């Protein structure tokens, strides 16, 4: 997180190849790629593992609440049409992000600001939608504590929502810097790096949306008695734990 934001305007020792800071003695980099951009790629590789660990956790517990008959169930809670719309909005923000980068590279600063703002706005609609969705689910009885579906759903999608929120703050920072004339054409790398992050967060949502929302869950009626499912030991452990508490 700290790493990501640091990128945007810091020149570090400016080993980058963008001419924006004009220290002639800085040699170009060994690969010719801007160091900040490479840092972003390294961070995104690592971030993939963050999401990987969370998605693995979600998939481990996918279907467990239904098997153990601990409501609420995903097929009762999830509203696929609603989330499809907000997913569409988020994916469209990748288009406006590309337009923002294209604008600054052509020196069209007004266009840059318009598209930065549009991207941040679309992102905000997504996050706002998620806030509404979370509140709605909570009122329907889905909590972090109540069952495994609630816990793993809120943590996974919440972690993604936090990423989008940080992205929005980043884009708005770029917008303000541009308003104050601090974002010239030579500094288009600042927008490009923010764009890398933004596209990554969009791509991750495609995976999460598919795994959490689109792949159907088995209806509870199709399941046999939970105890017969081999989870007898869980109930045994629970009663043992209960006796410990008392």
């Amino acid at each position, binding site marked *: 997180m*700290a*790493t990501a*934001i*640091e990128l945007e*305007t*810091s020149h*570090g*020792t400016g*080993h980058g*190849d963008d001419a924006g*800071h004009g*220290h002639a*003695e*800085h*040699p*170009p*980099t*060994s*690969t*010719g*790629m801007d*160091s900040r951009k*490479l*840092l972003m790629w*390294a*961070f995104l*590789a*690592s*971030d993939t*593992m*963050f999401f*990987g*660990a*969370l998605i*693995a*956790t979600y998939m*481990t*517990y996918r279907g*467990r*609440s239904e*098997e*153990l008959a*601990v409501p609420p169930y995903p097929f009762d809670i999830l509203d696929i049409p609603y989330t499809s719309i907000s997913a569409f909005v988020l994916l469209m923000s990748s288009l406006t992000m590309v337009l923002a980068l294209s604008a600054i590279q052509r020196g069209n600063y007004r266009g840059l600001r318009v598209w930065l703002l549009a991207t941040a706005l679309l992102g905000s609609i997504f996050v706002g939608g998620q806030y509404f969705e979370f509140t709605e689910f909570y009122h329907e009885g889905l*909590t*972090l*504590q*109540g*069952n*495994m579906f609630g*816990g*793993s759903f809120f*943590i996974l999608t919440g972690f993604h929502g936090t990423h989008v929120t940080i992205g929005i703050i980043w884009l708005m920072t770029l917008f303000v810097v541009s308003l104050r004339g601090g974002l010239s054409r030579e500094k288009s790398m600042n927008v490009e790096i923010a764009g890398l992050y933004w596209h990554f967060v969009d791509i991750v949502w495609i995976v999460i949306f598919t795994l959490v929302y689109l792949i159907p869950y088995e209806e509870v009626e199709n399941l046999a008695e939970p105890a017969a499912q081999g*989870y007898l030991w*869980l*109930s045994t*452990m*629970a009663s043992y*734990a209960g006796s*410990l*508490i008392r």
Partner: protein
Amino acid sequence: MAAIVHPQRVPAPAYAAPKPEATGLWSWLTTIDHKRIGILYGTSAIFFFLLGGLEALIIRTQLIRPENSLVSDQRYNELFTMHGTTMIFLAIMPMSAAFFNYIVPLQIGARDVAFPRLNAFSYWVFLAGGIILNLSWFFNMVPDTGWYGYAPLTSIMFSPADNVDFWALGIQVLGLASLAAAFNFIVTIINLRAPGMTMMRLPIFTWATLIVNVLIAMAFPAITIALALLSFDRFVGTSFFSAYNLVDGNLITTGGDPLLWQHLFWVFGHPEVYILVLPAFGIVSEIIPTFARKPLFGYAVMVYALAAIAFLGFGVWVHHMFTTGLGPTVDSVFAGTTMLIAIPTGVKILNWVATMWGGSMVFPTAMLFAIGLVSQFTIGGLSGVMHAVVPVDQQHNDSYFVVAHFHYVLFGGSIFAIFAGIYYWWPKISGHLLDERLGKMHFWLQFIGFNMTFFPMHFLGLAGMPRRYSSYGEESGWWFWNVVASIGAYLIAISILLFLYNVARSLRDSRRAGDNPWDAGTLEWAMSSPPPVYNFRDIPVVTHRDPLWAEKYGSHAVPADEGTLDVTLGGAKVGEADVADEDPGKQIEHRMDTDDTHDIHMPNPSFYPLVAALGIFLAALGLLVNNPWITFQLLSLPSLSVLGLLIMIFGIYGWSFEPAG
């Protein structure tokens, strides 16, 4: 060991530093110089190493006789938990980071790392994590669940007090520091190499650094997520790692799985083993060629072996879980991958031996420690590959045999190599040599002490002595080897005291070490000792793997690498070096022709990294100490954490908008 002269290339004291180097506390708090940050990492790591060593000594004293009652059972649990956590996260990792910081930019001919302020941030966050972990002693809430923190022992039901929270948040903060540093070093090594230094001309220690930091970047997310989920279990009341949950007074079977913790932990934990030992391999691969007086045998294969170990390291984690009953298929697959890892590791051992074979060997202390690693790591590696055999692993599980195994790898390997590195690079860092007579006493005492302590543990383990038990009965027959082990531990302690005395003496020594006391071949030895703040006055152009040897002895002395000797920069050819030209100095071209060092631009010091790290420290501390909580709708946070987050955001923004200078 005569110092060699490098015409033109040595930034001799005649060149003044661009600005006089600042001194005083403030200059250290705001420093972004990779060499100073390396020194900060090193001194902190030595401090924590002594702390972890003290904990080990108490453990060994407790076990010196049957039914001993020096410490209580609870205290004993705390001691082995903190000993493991401290040695791994606060001693070996930062000690490696100290070498990464100090040596790597010099070896690749860079002015600094790619992101100097991010580098300072990494150090301060590391320190914050170390402080959080050890603050637990003052609150008497010391972590007591082992360094692996298995669920459900860590759940709020079995560990209701804050002990586990100090552990989880401390490691969480340390992980953040490691991740930030990892991104920095990956970029530095890929992007800041001197002209002509192709990837296959990188010094092998730099290769090890690159691979270790890729490992950190890819492995730490798993533990970060695992610790975050654990913290959610403990602070918010989720049940990721326990099968049941108490909601509004009702016990419900949610179906959370304690085994998920072990998976997430060991997906991180096994690569972590290589994070601890690969830097050691890199250090030793620098030292052995220097003192065998010939280039490293099989350089390319050594690089591939490092990469292979790192890659395979992600596919073996279940061998830590053979006793959890995952079934014969899973066990067989992971037994196979575990055996596979022995191949690249064996290649490395053989290549070190082949490097020494036929060399004109000299044996200063650094070399003794390096050979110490080769021999002791072989023992640790052999007892390690034994555990690829599932029934053997199940027999050895949680016995002292395992303790013997991983101390041979991590102490006999990592720590010995770290001391080798200290003896080897100390003259570069301090400008003074360490005393060789004291050094050799240190080595032999530590070598004997180490083997006395840990070799008998093989016997104890096979005789059935379990790990982590605070005492044993007289009738067990384990007394004798425990006494031997404890005496060995005291010998190690004495050897460490000798080392500290040696360091203190060297710092007051008036004699200078010279630029290249070992006549080594890599770039860091071309600079004055200690190097000036800007490192190289002129960025060198590299045409060979061991540039100083090529320059001194002619290029026939080092094998030509596979590529051409084109000098490339940013993918473009900027020059060509004549392989046949053996005239010293001529192979080094100067890209810059500055007349004085005033043109060398160095970034300004900054205190924002410290501010951001302080924010993170407070954010974590808020969850551990009593302070009012602020509630906003469903969200509730401690006020100290909120303050910490605000300070962190202030630090990041101040840092982003501060002119880099």
